[in-house]
């Protein structure tokens, strides 16, 4: 703020100064400053986010080769100095024909969908309870939801190993009260994968639900009650439709990362709980087949692109709605 008393200068110099200032201002406001602000994140994202995806796409059309890096190049100097373009669709055909991959994709989608519904069933009452709690309590209850999210994800998954394993706490408890005769197989099962995903992603469901429920106008419910509407009907016709943005946002925040989840099926899942994130990991680290891993990644992107675009549209609508 250089609007203080003018320094003792000659009139000509100060007008020159002002003109210079205005020049700089228009420059920074108009093009240069704006370009500088945009350029850095833009360049970073192009180089380290978009370019990598394009490279994955490129390598998914290559063939595995005994070379470093272990795949065939796309452009090659063939005989007679002509540039040969090698596009190899075999990896995708392989994904489509081998029942392992198709099964892993379908299983990932199923696991993610069921976990999302379970998160919704547990998370909705919790978000509702927090939103209707006394104002002073809300922040404490919210903090308690966020706290596990800030602790290590890996360690929260690990906690379930100790609880679920054959000689773990849950089996020990059930045996000692005589409910079962021999330990249940809880760890390395589909059940453990569902449990792990619901446990890890529950905060992502609760937070957006809470955000929509706490903003709701409660006089609407009073009006419904005054007009003789029973509470359950008021919930179904007023509260639930109004909280739909939260339901959708929360469901996507659980569903999309759950589809590509690796740590949970790897640590808690068994041989039959094959998920696509784990398949990609194995192709890359164990089989060292980079082209197939790249094709798995591109196919996974295609699978989540639909909910992604939906998410984008909802996001755009919300921001334009907020701006009013």
């Amino acid at each position, binding site marked *: *703020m*250089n609007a203080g008393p003018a320094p003792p200068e000659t009139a000509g110099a100060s007008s020159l100064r002002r003109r210079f200032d205005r020049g*700089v201002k228009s420059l*920074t*406001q108009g093009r240069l400053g704006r370009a500088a602000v*945009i350029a850095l*994140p833009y360049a*970073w*994202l*192009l180089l380290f*986010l*978009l370019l*990598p*995806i394009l*490279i*994955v796409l490129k390598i998914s059309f290559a063939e595995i080769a005994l070379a470093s*890096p272990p795949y065939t190049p796309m452009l090659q100097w063939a005989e007679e100095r002509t540039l040969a373009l090698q596009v190899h669709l075999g990896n995708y055909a392989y994904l489509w024909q081998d029942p392992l991959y198709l099964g892993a994709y379908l299983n990932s989608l199923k696991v993610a969908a069921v976990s999302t519904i379970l998160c919704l069933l*547990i998370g909705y*009452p*919790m978000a*509702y*309870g927090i939103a*209707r709690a*006394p104002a002073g309590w809300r*922040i404490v209850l919210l*903090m*308690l*939801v*966020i706290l*596990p999210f*800030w602790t290590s994800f*890996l*360690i*929260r998954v*690990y*906690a379930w*190993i*100790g*609880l679920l*394993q054959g000689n*773990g*706490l849950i089996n020990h408890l059930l045996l000692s009260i005589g409910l079962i005769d021999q330990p249940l197989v809880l760890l390395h099962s589909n059940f453990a994968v569902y449990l792990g995903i619901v*446990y890890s992603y*529950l905060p992502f469901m609760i937070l957006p639900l809470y955000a929509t429920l706490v903003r709701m106008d409660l006089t609407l*419910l*009073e009006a419904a009650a005054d007009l003789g509407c029973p509470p359950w009907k008021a919930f179904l016709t007023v509260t639930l439709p109004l909280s739909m943005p939260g339901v959708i946002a929360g469901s996507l925040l659980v569903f*999309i*990362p759950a589809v*590509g*989840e*690796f*740590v949970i099926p790897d640590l808690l899942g068994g041989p039959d709980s094959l998920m696509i994130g784990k398949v990609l*990991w194995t192709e*890359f680290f164990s089989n060292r087949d*980079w082209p197939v891993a*790249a094709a798995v*990644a591109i196919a996974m992107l295609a699978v*989540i692109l639909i909910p992604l675009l939906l*998410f984008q549209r909802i996001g755009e609508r919300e921001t334009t709605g*907020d701006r009013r």
Partner: protein
Amino acid sequence: MTGRRPFWLFTALAFGYSFLYLPIITLIVYSFNDSRLVTVWGGFSTRWYAELFRNEQILSALWLSVRIAAMTATLAVILGTLAALTLVRFTHFRTRMLFAGMVAAPLVMPEVILGLSGLLMFVTLEQAIGWPPGRGMTTITIAHVTFTSAFVAVIVQSRLSQLDVSLEEAAMDLGARPWKVFFVIILPIISPALIAGWLLGFTLSMDDLVIASFVSGPGATTLPMVVYSSVRLGVSPQVNALATLIVVVVATGVIIAGWLLHRQTRRRDR
């Protein structure tokens, strides 16, 4: 409405919170167990903590993770803030949709894809221009900045869109240049969001296993990578001790943050 809270809501909350916290509490309790077995209580002991502090592998991995996380958080705050400024202030420029899409993409991209694509890009770059030479701390940091800056951008963006534009206009009218408006007016107002973004970036980077496993090279083993390889072999009391320390640090941080937030809202209400 707050007066008559049905009983079932209380039950739902009690069930939900015990679901969230019982596993963590058992971890903490068994970190003080003298026995190596989960089911046998061998008496109170702090021997696993002593072993943890003597474990060179874990300590050096922790130090590497802390350095990567601090660097990541700092760079992510800078990039995320610039991205948020671009999205909130410059609503019309060509390829804005592409930019907005790229900013939001890491939020919803599976980690395995981010990791794989990062690695393939580093390999290609090294082949083409010789940079980065090999993989390690630098490549992990770059990959972490790319995905954490998206989270920072979301936090800063929501703060920026609440900002009163008339403050900036007043400063501009009084002759402040845009960069001065940014440093004197915008930056102090959004500083809580920057702190929150830094802490989130630090935590996400400290916590990441999948991306780091892809883009890391020999000699650069982060803390989650060490924890993962020991957890794969089964329950390890040292990991319980480590988990307890993490929970204590995070809980202290969250309580302090909550207290500051509480004080701030009370001051604003007054």
